[in-house]
């Protein structure tokens, strides 16, 4: 039998289960889901709803990282997209126009990154850092430095609404995960991305349009960030250009890497990313649930992240394997 530990999602999944168990032991109410006003209500529902934005950003980030790059600008794109939504809705535009503009903003931002990285050969960290720094300024310019309040029930539904009692935002994000999975794994596209990430030169000589594939990954990532911006603004019914999406790029990169996608590129695990994003959100909720004082909350968070990362490392795995030699190996 193939040992389970070989699966890239084993350790993040184990971490997630361990966290949930810890919470359940502390307070069994953690797992309780009830019906309130005809919709599901409980901590697990909150984790899914709050975690859906990180999940979405991390989905796009997975593909970029799989090509061997990284996109630091996603947090700023979230802020810009939120600002665009607020201004358009305030101007009386319809929901469809607003959504199209927000996702269009993400596509545009992704195209700029893709152009710099794939066509002009700028280092991904440098290329996306430009938009990361400039993007927040753009977002503030759009809303003129103010927090703009959004009064649109249909817009708010996207983040806070329920479909047949189930929160809409996680449903939307899970559907996008499934669609991305099928688009990449049931066609050769996923293989192309991994090939480009593994060895760009070789894949180009093999006849792949390596630059185009890379650019498409950044564009997809931008679109995901744009949609996440919509969800972030809808969640609090306001566009907060200064703080929306703050440090989101780091959460997304963490979710991707913990989920088993290699930062060096050439391999991606979409399901792992989803689990990684939920792991972060569960960790945050755990701190609230256990009543860890906010000043020291980053410490247990850091410890768990270090733990999961170490367990994933092959070297540490081999070393641990040496401590408990397998009996059947003899």
């Amino acid at each position, binding site marked *: 039998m193939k040992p389970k530990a070989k699966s890239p999602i084993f350790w993040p999944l184990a971490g997630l289960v361990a966290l949930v168990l810890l919470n359940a032991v502390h307070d069994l109410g953690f797992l309780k889901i009830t019906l309130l*006003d005809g919709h599901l209500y409980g901590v697990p529902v909150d984790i899914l709803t709050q975690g859906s934005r990180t999940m979405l950003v991390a989905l796009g980030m997975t593909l970029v990282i799989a090509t061997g790059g990284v996109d630091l600008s996603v947090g700023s794109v979230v802020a810009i997209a939120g600002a665009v939504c607020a201004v358009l809705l305030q101007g009386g535009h319809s929901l469809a126009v607003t959504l199209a503009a927000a996702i269009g903003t993400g596509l545009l931002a992704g195209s700029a990154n893709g152009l710099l990285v794939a066509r002009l050969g700028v280092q991904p960290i440098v290329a996306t850092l430009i938009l990361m720094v400039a993007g927040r300024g753009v977002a503030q310019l759009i809303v003129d430095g*103010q927090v703009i309040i959004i009064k649109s029930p249909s817009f708010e539904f996207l983040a806070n609404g329920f479909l047949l009692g189930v929160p809409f935002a996680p449903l939307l994000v899970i559907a996008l995960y499934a669609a991305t999975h099928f688009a990449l794994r049931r066609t050769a596209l996923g293989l192309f991305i991994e090939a480009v990430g593994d060895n760009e030169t070789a894949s180009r000589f093999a006849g792949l349009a390596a630059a185009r594939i890379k650019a498409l990954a950044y564009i997809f990532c931008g679109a995901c960030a744009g949609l996440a911006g919509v969800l972030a603004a809808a969640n*609090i019914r306001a566009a*907060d250009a200064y703080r929306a999406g703050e440090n989101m790029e780091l959460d997304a990169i963490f979710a991707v890497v913990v989920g088993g996608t290699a930062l060096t590129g050439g391999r991606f695990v979409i399901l792992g990313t989803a689990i990684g994003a939920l792991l972060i959100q569960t960790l945050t909720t755990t701190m*609230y649930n256990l009543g860890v004082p906010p*000043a020291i909350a980053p410490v247990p968070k850091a410890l768990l992240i270090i733990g999961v990362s170490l367990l994933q490392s092959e070297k540490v795995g081999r070393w641990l394997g040496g401590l408990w030699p397998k009996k059947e190996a003899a």
Partner: protein
Amino acid sequence: MKLTPWFKSFLAFVSLAAATVAPAALKIGFAQTGAESAWRTANSDSMKAEAAKRGIDLKFSDGQGKQENQIRALRSFIAQKVDAVVLAPLVETGWDPVLRDAKRAGIPVIITDRSIVTTDETLYACFIGSDFFEEGRMAAEWLAKKTGGTGRIVELQGTPGSAPANERRKAFAEGIASHPGLKIIDSQSGDFRRAGGKEVMEALLKKHGKSIEIVYAHNDDMALGAIQAIEEAGLKPGTDIVIVSIDAVREGVQAVVAGKINCTVECNPLFGPKVYDTVAKLLAGQKVERKSFNKDELFDATNAGAALPTRQY
């Protein structure tokens, strides 16, 4: 002589510079932290509007949330030989070298909003700030009166380690200490963000259920986020759960009028008049108070409606 376009523009620049120097308007440099909130924007607007009113030549610099930008701005103010410098420090430490430069150039420095920590107190002329401690104390006092001294409180803290979060937490804890019936049952950080307030409140509502009677938020943004979480849990903010907050931004006062926030203590951002009065005194060689505070008011159901139309921020 044929002038190259470059030289022409250079000449134009020099003559322009000479023209602006000619009238002896008061030149003041203001190094702002950034534009992170509605409060901050109102603070900047007050400084700019009051300068325009008094005919002061204000050099405004937006630090964009970075101390190195603010230090660079201070250096450039010193190079431009301004009459006085106003600094809203982003962080407490690391200002000594640049303040020493200002002192050597004979330019008085006024610290506003947040305080700094320095080894040499003579490096700045005075501090004009918001009394975060007094704000927390006022909130506690109001709450004790309103509830008769009993209730279970959850606290939504600001960014851990920041001066407003620290002082508002300490002052509130001291304020309710004399009322043993008022208990803080949980205290978590919403990072001064609306999304943070909502997320923390969602979690705390599940953890404590209906035993939460009072929410004390360190700013209006977090209180407004918490209100959403409370409504989504099927409860009525302001009625089922008493909400006390600080800042009194326009939207916060609106929520008081709507009965969703019970009380919000003002943190007045309109520093302009007081700062320029102080500068004028300093330059005239008069003595100024070492530490002074902007006066803050409290808004609840009794006076919010009347105050709302005149709120500038």
